[in-house]
């Protein structure tokens, strides 16, 4: 993985590439093209060695669609944490709200059957509303106090879904949630492609929207607030409304992801939205490179695949080297923990740090030639 990382950062250094210049200038085009290429390439990769040794192509595509949910979550959290600099440790709450909103809107339990496509929007709107409700009284809190309030919110929401059993079926969860259909075609479990393509479209739209936002007045206000709230405020940025907007947009992205998630899984239960989800998404954002949309996306994708596919294949993997005596499955989180620590120590700014953030962080040092080595050296001598 570090090889990929250094190649990627090497590529970023070559700024003279004309295609790159064009794409830099037309980010929307780049996003659409990039997503199209990725969407087409992933299933092809999955059908080739070594990936086809793990799973069949169909299962990979299914996993990719699931990974897309987490990519979407990471993109949304990136708005809050990476762009606006607000630490949110309870992001799974909005994910849960989106998922339950869809389950209320389209399941035998509620008796409603609203179309998936409308419920996607409604899930996003409901989650955003809760984001505003939580944010309005708490966003004036200083960074880490906000973090604990969000953490608390993240614990409260699943507990409410758990205990309000009359309305949520409590611990049993709501099952039989309806799958989407489009122009008469019904999505099924046996065909992962429609989910995959839907997710690709959602992600493309999300990336476009986030790019637009990031480069807009609002985006600059977020970054100004992230860097220095006082200075931003004295320059005419309204910190409260700006932060609220970031919070609500982040929440709505999670709501969207939640609606998609429950429609695909056809089941929601409170135990799916615990703190582990919140910190997994946070780890995705930080590992990918906070503030960098593509970095966050790739980080989320890789981490999800590691967690749900590669870690689960440790036993066959080591068995192929003749190591069969040890149950590696049992120790997967030891390895995962070690990997998290090692990756952060090696690349404290994430795999693909945002260029702007990097410039900000190294403003005094005139951007070193070898950023990776420089960071490492600097990190070890405080």
């Amino acid at each position, binding site marked *: 993985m570090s090889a990929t990382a250094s190649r990627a950062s090497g590529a970023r250094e070559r700024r003279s590439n004309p295609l790159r210049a064009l794409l830099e200038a037309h980010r929307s085009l780049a996003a659409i093209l990039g997503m199209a290429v990725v969407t087409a390439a992933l299933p092809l990769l999955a059908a080739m060695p070594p990936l086809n040794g793990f799973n069949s192509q169909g299962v990979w595509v299914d996993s990719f669609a699931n990974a897309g949910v987490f990519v979407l979550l990471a993109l949304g959290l990136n708005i809050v944490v990476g762009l606006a600099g607000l630490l949110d440790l309870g992001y799974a709450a909005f994910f849960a709200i989106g998922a339950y909103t869809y389950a209320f809107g389209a399941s035998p339990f509620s008796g409603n059957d609203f179309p998936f496509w409308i419920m996607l929007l409604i899930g996003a709107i409901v989650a955003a509303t809760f984001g505003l409700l939580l944010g309005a009284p708490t966003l004036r809190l200083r960074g*880490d106090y906000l973090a604990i309030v969000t953490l*608390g919110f993240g614990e409260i929401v699943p507990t409410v879904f758990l205990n309000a059993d009359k309305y949520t079926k409590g611990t049993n969860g709501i099952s039989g949630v309806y799958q989407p259909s489009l122009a008469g075609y019904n999505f099924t479990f046996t065909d992962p492609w429609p989910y995959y393509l839907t997710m690709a479209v959602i992600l493309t739209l999300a990336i476009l929207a986030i790019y637009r936002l990031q480069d807009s007045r609002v985006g600059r206000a977020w970054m100004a607030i992230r860097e220095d709230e*006082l200075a931003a405020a004295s320059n005419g940025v309204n910190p409260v409304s700006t932060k609220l907007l970031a919070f609500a947009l982040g929440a709505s992205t999670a709501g969207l992801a939640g609606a998609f998630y429950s429609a695909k899984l056809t089941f929601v239960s409170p135990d799916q939205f615990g703190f582990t989800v919140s910190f997994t998404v*946070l780890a995705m954002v930080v590992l990918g490179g906070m503030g960098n949309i593509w970095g966050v996306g790739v980080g989320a994708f890789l981490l999800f695949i590691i967690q749900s596919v590669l870690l689960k294949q440790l036993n066959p993997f080591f068995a192929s080297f003749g190591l069969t005596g040890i149950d590696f499955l049992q120790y997967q989180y*030891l390895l995962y923990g070690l990997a998290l620590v090692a990756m*952060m120590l090696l690349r404290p700014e994430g795999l693909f740090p945002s260029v702007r953030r990097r410039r900000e962080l190294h403003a005094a040092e005139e951007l070193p030639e070898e950023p990776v080595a420089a960071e490492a050296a600097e990190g070890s001598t*405080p």
Partner: protein
Amino acid sequence: MQTQRSIRLPARLDGSQLPFVAAIAGSLVVAYALVGPQQFSNFLTIGAVYALIALGYTMVYGIIELINFAHGDVFMVGSFVALWILSGPLGLHGSIDNPALLAVVLVGLFLVTMLILGALGIFIERFAYRPLRNAPRLAPLITAIGVSFILQNIMQAFFGPSPVNSPQIFTLNARFDVAGASIGYLNVFIVAVAVALMIALQLFVGRTRLGRAMRSTAQDREAAELMGVDINLTIAFTFFIGSALAGAAGIVWVLYFGYAVFNQGFYAGLFAFTAAVLGGIGNTTGAALGGFVIGFLQVAAAQYGYSRWSEVAIFGVLVLVLVFRPTGLLGQQLGERA
């Protein structure tokens, strides 16, 4: 703008502290009236455990602004170390009835466990956090989560995934009756140990050279360095104390509940962290206060039949407190981070 961080402690008691002391005393009376004597003893005991863990959180946060998510797991390791010492080298099974022998074993247990845990804290800081001291702020947060995974898995590999019983050397049957309640001597012992450690901590931070170094580092690391404070040593020492206190909490846990399990640190850590924030993070008195508040909320929820909602109550109170006092119960108004 330089962030103002500090490990705060109240100045020596004078007139200005009276309202605070009165408020605490008043709260205790109200708490007593609400839950009765037996539950009062219950909440002080569990509150003491949370308070001891919360101290470590708040000290580490005060000095390097890191939410040390592995701290709850350090507490868990403390429980296992204590459990192992009791059942391994000491080979104990039941309670020790000879008070003198019990005292010797307890003193030794606290000394050894706290030293081991302190060393573990220094080790974690050296390898997982120090290299990232100047990295983006969230990087050490992620390594902290990684360290948490590692500690849990190591303990799971050694002791298995199920609760492991420990010899309860402090007999639970030694009780006395007061105000219609039957209070265990162990409960009294736990609260006394916690309070004694907190007072020792206050004295240490307030009166010693290293304590002064800790406070100055917390307030302004660069200035402290210019004044000749060894920053690395000071931060390492903060981890030593914080982890040793978590170790003490781990011992108390094993003595009281008689078991340890590899994932006990998660919720205990979560509540202790909440306690630290509730009290005003960076403030050791506040952390202790927060620990008792959370212990009380849990007990009150159980008393009134809302145990399903106790987490909601804890975090709901947290949100309310922060809405009205944005830096916690005892936190001072701080400048926004630059």
